[in-house]
């Protein structure tokens, strides 16, 4: 917090105690608000630590804002606790406020309804060094070792520990704030981490062992790279620092410590010299890039670099080139850094430079930042290097080119348009044929030149293959059928799995030719072409290109061919290409799905297949592969179904061949996300085959089967079928394959969904699945955990399993998972913990692990499903915990939090919260607190709902809340809607409502309202119910009404 406050926050210039109104400040402030508000809930111990000095500021709060926790006398407010000197921990004397603990800060912010940020801002403006005030002088020292010693001297150890904790927490906040700030600031950066990285890579090439090396070594001080690409620690990144480098040159002593910042690079004092944040100092002036800095600092380096490019490198021209850019575009940045450099650059090296560059005047020229930001450094430097390696002859050529004014102009023109083609063209010169070559090559289009350039980067070690492929493709363009086949066969002899070859084919225009061949009548050319396309389409770039060139349309039409080999190849290639959305769309648009489904029609399981039938099976397999790829789009799933694919898939599912089953089951499980497929899988009898294949020896197939069952078992009938075909045991067996996480995720998913049926749970008990599942609660990826916890949650609905989970040690890992962030996981975990809490022994463990507090914190989760699930889980916890009332009160702000959830618009959240409130209200003190938080009007306002689940829990909550103070009277306007609940069809609503009405009938005016709304007749029916609780409540309510009537008559006539 300290660093963030002193550096990140932007203060109004000139005034030391006013914060600027910027997005960055706002982000930081709201971060602090959030932190402080949650502080007392997250760290209750630390929250009570009394500050060394109070935080004082002018607040806009007044006495009315404070609640009963504080002593309010007139305008001033005081907390009941006070520090050892007798000062109250919170003291408000408007507008001045003094606070001593985080607890009160938290409460204060919670009380502040609207102007939280204002409050924090006022506080920070008044307390420029809050850490100092909170923790005393220790916080000035960042090193924790020192800190520890210093505290130990004068304070009790318990307090020390708290202080340490608090400091840690604050440091965490600090880092977080800095990260917030850094992301904002780096966006404005001028020298980017990538640019530095590229340059460092370049420099590394100059390092070597020989005499000719320019540098000894280049390395980063830190190998850790932050997500934004910087290597410096966050608080240094605040200053725009990117990384620090240690460079050993051949002549300077000892080594150079260089800091790269967004504004430039500079030498600094030795890093290790001092402690603290300001350990480095700018020793030199700031340069725009490392090259320039090194050239200035190390004569040897400058010499070596110059030597390398002296013959070929027209230094003046280049410099002028850059100079122009700089002059033309003078950004504030370049100016500033140049000015600085001008002032302080060591005279000697400058003169050196000047001597060596007669063309340049007294000013030193460097690549401008604009040039650098275009990302040109690296290609250009590479060009330089390559040039230097080339033969003397080619050097001469280049020298000639660059010296002739025409070529210079040309080159410069290229640079100013877009420097890239210029670089490339110069790189392309390889034949010593004179200047004409240069002109010719540089006038070629960028398209053609781009490829060799890129290829050179990726395949420097394999240039021959590229040229060979280029030659073959050239032949292919002018070949008759016979030659075409020979060339295609030769192309296939390349290693087409290798990306080099794949891209080479594309880059030399081979894809166009191959796809054109598909449009001819020559079957052999088509087959040859498809065989290549099938291989190279394993590459995503090739897939895109094939789709762009319209290859899919042709391949779809080939599916109609009578030649089975051709059909197979086309389908397999489609399977490869249709891995992205647009390709799948194209396949569907051109009627591909229907044709592919048509391929599935074969007899897969004949005892002895003829050769033709075997080929049909192969065609079907390829068709299934293609459909598998296509089925990742929802509309394709529908198209497959409409084309009659489901019965065909069902038939193929009976195939004994695994290579057939994998695509078939793969397609099915992909499609099982659709309701129509789930029904079809059940009705076409596919569950049996899926279950059968769970026991095969191929993990991929097992995974798809389990995954299909996972998706289908939402349906009860399917779950029963899985059990009937004895699929539960193989699932449990598959749990042992803990190494294959995908398989494990599918298996646990299937077990989860299957365990929704209680009969299945009984089977799982028999197979001891619970113990295995509990063991899987640790060290698993989230997708597995979600399913495992889901399964445990379902199993825990049976009481005897609760003990099993406890005995196999499942409670602790479950409670630990409550701190996670995965929403799906949280929903399942809360459900499982809630189920476990129904057992008192489990509850003891949960309580000990502070599980209820964790559940309660989840009420703050933004996801309503998590909120609801957490609230449901809280109900059994309150019911079964010892001293539940005390426990609930101990959650600071907890009751207010849950009452406020009644403002939610989500029905399930409301129902769950009502249920929880019903439990909370059983404790009178808590009932008093929630009444203060306004629970009564909130509940009353919900009564108009028609949702039976909500009605039931709402009625229960009302019934329990009636017992405090005059709540019963306050519920007056809820009476009429409640009477209507009695007409609901749900008997559980009746019971809860009758109890609520009985409580409400203790107030005479409520009785009148009830009577007016015809409650007696309805209650009389209820009295006849078999449910005794309902009977009693209804009867008692009628009795109350009757008493009132009698008393009334008595008053009138007696």
């Amino acid at each position: 917090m300290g660093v963030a406050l002193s550096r990140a926050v932007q203060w109004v210039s000139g005034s030391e105690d006013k914060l600027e109104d910027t997005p960055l400040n706002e982000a930081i402030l709201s971060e602090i608000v959030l932190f402080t508000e949650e502080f007392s809930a997250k760290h209750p111990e630390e929250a009570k630590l009394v500050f060394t000095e109070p935080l004082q500021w002018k607040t806009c709060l007044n006495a009315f804002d404070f609640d009963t926790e504080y002593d309010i006398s007139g305008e001033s407010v005081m907390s009941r606790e006070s520090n050892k000197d007798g000062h109250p921990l919170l003291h408000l004397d408007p507008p001045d406020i003094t606070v001593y603990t985080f607890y009160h800060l938290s409460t204060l912010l919670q009380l502040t309804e609207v102007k939280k940020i204002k409050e924090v801002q006022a506080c920070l403006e008044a307390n420029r060094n809050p850490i100092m005030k909170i923790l005393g002088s220790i916080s000035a020292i960042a090193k924790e070792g020192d800190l520890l010693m210093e505290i130990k001297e004068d304070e009790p150890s318990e307090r020390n520990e708290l202080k340490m904790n608090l400091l840690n927490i604050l440091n965490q906040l600090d880092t977080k704030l800095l990260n917030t700030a850094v992301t904002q600031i780096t966006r404005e950066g001028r020298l980017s981490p990538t640019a530095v990285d590229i340059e460092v890579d370049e420099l590394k090439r100059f390092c070597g062992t020989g005499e000719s090396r320019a540098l000894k070594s280049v390395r980063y001080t830190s190998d850790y790279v932050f997500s934004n690409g910087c290597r410096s620690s966050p608080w240094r990144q605040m200053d725009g620092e990117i990384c620090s480098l240690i460079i050993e040159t051949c002549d300077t002593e000892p080594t150079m410590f260089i800091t790269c910042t967004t504004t430039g690079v500079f030498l600094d004092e030795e890093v290790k010299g001092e402690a603290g944040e300001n350990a480095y100092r700018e020793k030199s002036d700031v340069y725009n890039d490392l090259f320039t800095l090194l050239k200035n600092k190390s004569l040897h380096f400058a010499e070596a670099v110059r030597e390398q490019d002296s013959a070929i490198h027209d230094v003046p021209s280049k410099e002028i080139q850059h100079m122009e850019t700089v002059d033309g575009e003078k950004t504030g940045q370049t100016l500033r850094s140049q000015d600085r450099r001008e002032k302080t650059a060591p005279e000697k090296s400058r003169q050196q430079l000047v001597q060596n560059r007669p063309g340049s005047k007294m000013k030193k020229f460097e690549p401008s930042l604009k040039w650098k930001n275009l990302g040109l450094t690296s290609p250009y430097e590479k060009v330089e290097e390559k040039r230097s390696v080339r033969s003397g002859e080619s050097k001469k050529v280049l020298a000639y080119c660059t010296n002739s004014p025409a070529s210079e102009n040309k080159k410069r023109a290229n640079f100013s348009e877009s420097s890239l083609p210029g670089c490339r063209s110069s790189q392309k010169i390889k034949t010593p044929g004179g200047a004409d070559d240069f002109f010719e090559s540089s006038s070629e289009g960028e398209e053609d030149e781009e490829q060799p350039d890129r290829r050179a980067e990726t395949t420097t070690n394999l240039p021959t293959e590229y040229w060979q492929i280029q030659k073959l493709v050239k032949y292919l363009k002018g070949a008759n059928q016979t030659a075409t086949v020979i060339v295609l066969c030769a192309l296939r002899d390349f290693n087409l799995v290798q990306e080099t070859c794949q891209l080479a084919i594309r880059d030399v225009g081979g894809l166009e030719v191959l796809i054109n061949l598909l449009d001819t009548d020559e079957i052999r050319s088509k087959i040859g072409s498809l065989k290549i396309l099938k291989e190279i389409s394993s590459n995503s770039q090739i897939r895109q290109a094939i789709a762009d060139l319209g290859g899919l349309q042709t391949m779809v039409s080939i599916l109609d061919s009578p030649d089975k080999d051709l059909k197979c190849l086309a389908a397999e290639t489609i399977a490869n290409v249709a891995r992205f959305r647009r390709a799948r769309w194209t396949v569907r648009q051109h009627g591909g799905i229907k044709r592919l489904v048509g391929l599935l029609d074969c007899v897969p399981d004949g005892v002895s297949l003829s050769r033709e039938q075997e080929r049909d099976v192969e065609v079907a397999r390829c068709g299934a592969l293609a459909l598998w790829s296509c089925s990742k789009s929802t509309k394709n799933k529908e198209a497959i179904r409409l084309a009659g694919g489901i019965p065909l898939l069902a038939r193929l599912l009976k195939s004994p061949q695994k290579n057939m089953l994998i695509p078939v089951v793969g397609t099915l499980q992909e499609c099982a996300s659709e309701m129509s497929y789930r029904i079809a899988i059940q009705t076409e009898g596919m569950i049996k085959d899926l279950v059968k294949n769970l026991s095969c020896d191929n993990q991929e197939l097992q995974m798809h089967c389990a995954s299909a069952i996972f998706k289908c078992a939402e349906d009860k009938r399917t779950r029963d079928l899985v059990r009937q075909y004895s699929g539960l045991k193989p699932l449990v067996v598959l749990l042992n394959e803990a190494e294959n996480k995908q398989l494990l995720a599918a298996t646990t998913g299937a077990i989860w969904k299957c365990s929704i049926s209680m009969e299945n749970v009984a089977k799982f008990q028999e197979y001891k699945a619970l113990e295995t599942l509990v063991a899987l609660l640790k060290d698993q990826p989230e997708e597995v955990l979600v399913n495992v916890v889901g399964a445990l949650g379902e199993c825990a609905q049976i009481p005897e399993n609760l003990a099993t989970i406890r005995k196999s040690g499942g409670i602790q890992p479950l409670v630990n998972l409550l701190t996670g962030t995965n929403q799906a996981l949280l929903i399942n975990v809360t459900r499982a913990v809630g189920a476990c809490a129904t057992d008192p022994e489990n509850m003891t463990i949960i309580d000990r692990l502070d599980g209820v507090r964790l559940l309660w914190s989840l009420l703050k989760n933004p996801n309503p499903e998590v909120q609801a699930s957490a609230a449901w889980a809280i109900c059994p916890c309150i019911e079964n915990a010892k001293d539940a009332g005390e426990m609930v009160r101990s959650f600071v702000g907890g009751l207010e939090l849950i009452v406020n959830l009644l403002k939610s618009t989500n029905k399930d959240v409301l129902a769950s919260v009502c249920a929880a409130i019903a439990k909370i209200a059983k404790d009178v003190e808590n009932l008093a607190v929630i009444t203060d938080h306004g629970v009564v009007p909130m509940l009353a306002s919900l009564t108009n709902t028609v949702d039976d689940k909500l009605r039931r829990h709402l009625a229960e909550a009302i019934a329990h809340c009636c017992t405090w103070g005059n709540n019963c009277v306050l519920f007056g306007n809820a009476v009429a809607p409640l009477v209507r609940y009695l007409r609901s069809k749900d008997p559980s609503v009746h019971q809860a409502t009758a109890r609520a009405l009985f409580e409400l009938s203790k107030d005479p005016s409520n009785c009148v309202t009830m009577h007016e709304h015809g409650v007696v007749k309805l209650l009389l029916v209820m009295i006849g119910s078999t449910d005794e609780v309902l009977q009693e409540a209804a009867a008692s309510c009628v009795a109350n009404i009757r008493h009132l009537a009698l008393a009334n008559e008595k008053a009138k006539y007696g």
Partner: protein
Amino acid sequence: MSAMNKKLIQNLAEALCKQFKHFNTEEAECLIRLFNDLLEEQSERRAAHGLDRVKFRNILHNTFDMTDDMMMDRVFRSFDKDNDSYVSVKEWVQGLSVLLRGTLDEKIKHCFDVYDLNGDGYISREEMFHMLKDSLIRQPTEEDPDEGVKDLVEIALKKMDYDHDGRVSYADFKKAVRDENLLLEAFGNCLPDAKTIQVFEGRVFQKSNELH
């Protein structure tokens, strides 16, 4: 006469279909009839010997869509087992059994015979060059217009010459084609494609069905 002729044809058909397994008697009969029909179109003088080169090439061109002169000549040679410059009825049925229904090995043999121009049992570089010389569009800009073809020959040789003796033996050819079926007609079109076969068989054999 006609009855006599019919009897003769039947006997011949039975004999031939035993010898060359791919046809049944009826089919063989149809082919013999077709042969006789074609023979009648020729002038009387040569009819005794069988189909001459010109007639046969016409058939290959019109019926089996072959276009390359050299290949058609070579196919004629391959049919004409006894080298008398005429395709006899026996050679006709034998040849067609390979062309229409041959196994892969039979086709390999056929193609090899076609490509082995001088009949020495090897396909040499020169023979390949000869067969491929028109297979690439010539680039007038290039110094050596034949460079591409030469290159193609080397490519083919690299793919097929397993024993590295600079020429393709029958064993080499067989191995190469078995590895990659596409190489069967590596040096020129000398087999009818599936569609042509279907049309031809439909025409010839169906006519027989109608007759009987």
